[in-house]
């Protein structure tokens, strides 16, 4: 009886435990995609991405920079960089970032001295660590430089803004450090007319 138990234990170890010891590279096989951009503007008349880096499945890295940029009447930004990193053919990791210097949105309605958007995704984890805003001012008033994820503020006559917007999915995360939603009211009905996104980074692993 005791011998049978030992035999069963040995068989269990021999057949089951090896399955848990598969090499990490095999377990981590997946598809990684990521992208980032410094400034994204979408309205009825403007559709622009400035400094945009995109890494598709199987690719390793992309980068772009736009120096100082302006979308007249909507955004100016300095020193815009976007970097995206995938895992290559065994896509188990993705990291993307967008960085900007001084930013001015809607003729000074929102300003910041520096923006970092960073998205990281690995198998089983996604985060926005490394993201930050510096000297954030809204309508002339200093705002917390470290807003909680998805902090929303109304902008009278304009729409609203979401700071540190984090959109999570089952495969990763997208972070938009400043997302202005442009709205107008027609016959009592509010409708969205555009978006301004500053510092956007996305990373996905599936």
């Amino acid at each position, binding site marked *: 009886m005791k011998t049978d138990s030992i*035999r069963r234990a*040995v*068989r*269990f*170890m*021999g*057949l089951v*435990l*090896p399955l848990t*010891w*598969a*090499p*990490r*590279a095999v377990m*981590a096989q997946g598809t990684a995609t990521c992208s980032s951009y410094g400034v994204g503007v979408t309205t009825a008349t403007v559709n622009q991405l400035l400094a945009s880096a995109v890494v598709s499945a199987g690719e*390793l*890295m992309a*980068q772009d*920079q736009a*120096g100082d940029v302006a979308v007249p009447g909507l955004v100016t930004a300095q*020193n815009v*960089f976007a*970097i*995206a*990193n*995938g*895992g*290559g053919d*065994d896509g*188990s*990791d993705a*990291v*993307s*970032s967008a*960085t900007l*210097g001084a930013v001015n949105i809607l003729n000074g309605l929102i300003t910041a*001295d*520096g923006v*970092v958007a*960073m998205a*990281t995704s*690995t198998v*089983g*984890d996604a*985060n*926005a*660590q*490394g*993201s*930050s*805003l*510096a*000297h954030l001012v809204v309508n002339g008033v200093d705002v917390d*430089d*470290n807003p909680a994820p998805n902090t929303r503020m109304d902008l009278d006559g304009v729409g609203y803004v979401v700071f540190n917007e984090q959109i999570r999915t089952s495969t990763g995360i997208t972070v938009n450090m400043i997302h202005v939603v442009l709205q107008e009211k027609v016959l009592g009905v509010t409708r969205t007319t555009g978006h301004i996104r500053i510092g956007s980074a996305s990373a996905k692993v599936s």
Partner: protein
Amino acid sequence: MSRLKALAGVSATAVIALVGWSCEANRTALAPSGGGPLFHFQQFECTPLKMTGGGRIDYPPGTRDQNPPASHEYETFGAHVIASGQVDENGRCLADKGALEWVDHRPEMEVDGHPLNLHATEVTFAERATDATCSDGAVHWGGKLRVQNTGQENLDFEVWDCDNGEPGRDDGFAISVPEIGYAVQCWEPDYNTPAEPTCYLTGGNRQFHPTH
């Protein structure tokens, strides 16, 4: 029959264990326990490897914590390297390919009002560090780069790259470009780095990929 099953099970276990063992870093016990000389990134082997990812470092001081954002004391980067374990006639471990994009946002490093931007033009060597306490893998690699701001190019650079588990908070990275006197390296006397001279990432991730 039951003996055969048991034997097969044990054999399979032994084979898998051997494969797992063969993929483990060949570490030697050189890491000091504290207070002694630092020995990371001193011993290397030429082996197939890949390191990918990117991140942010808040240097100085290069600890786990972010500096106040308004200080702009941080660096961001993307970098990868791939090697197949080839060795040149001088015994140097060759890299198959790689890339580095490095942006130093510190005001004191600005060139004509723009962040210092380094861009690798060639990655020539990559060697796995066998003495670094980076749980998943450590690589010393480098090549040539260009300073995008000034056009200076053909400058030697080297990086120290540490994957110290997931999701990346304990990972480390360091860079040196001797010809222009530029370095982001963390040498902590109390051994408070992932593996000196690397600095902690405050965002992002380094990912070591076993390739065999």
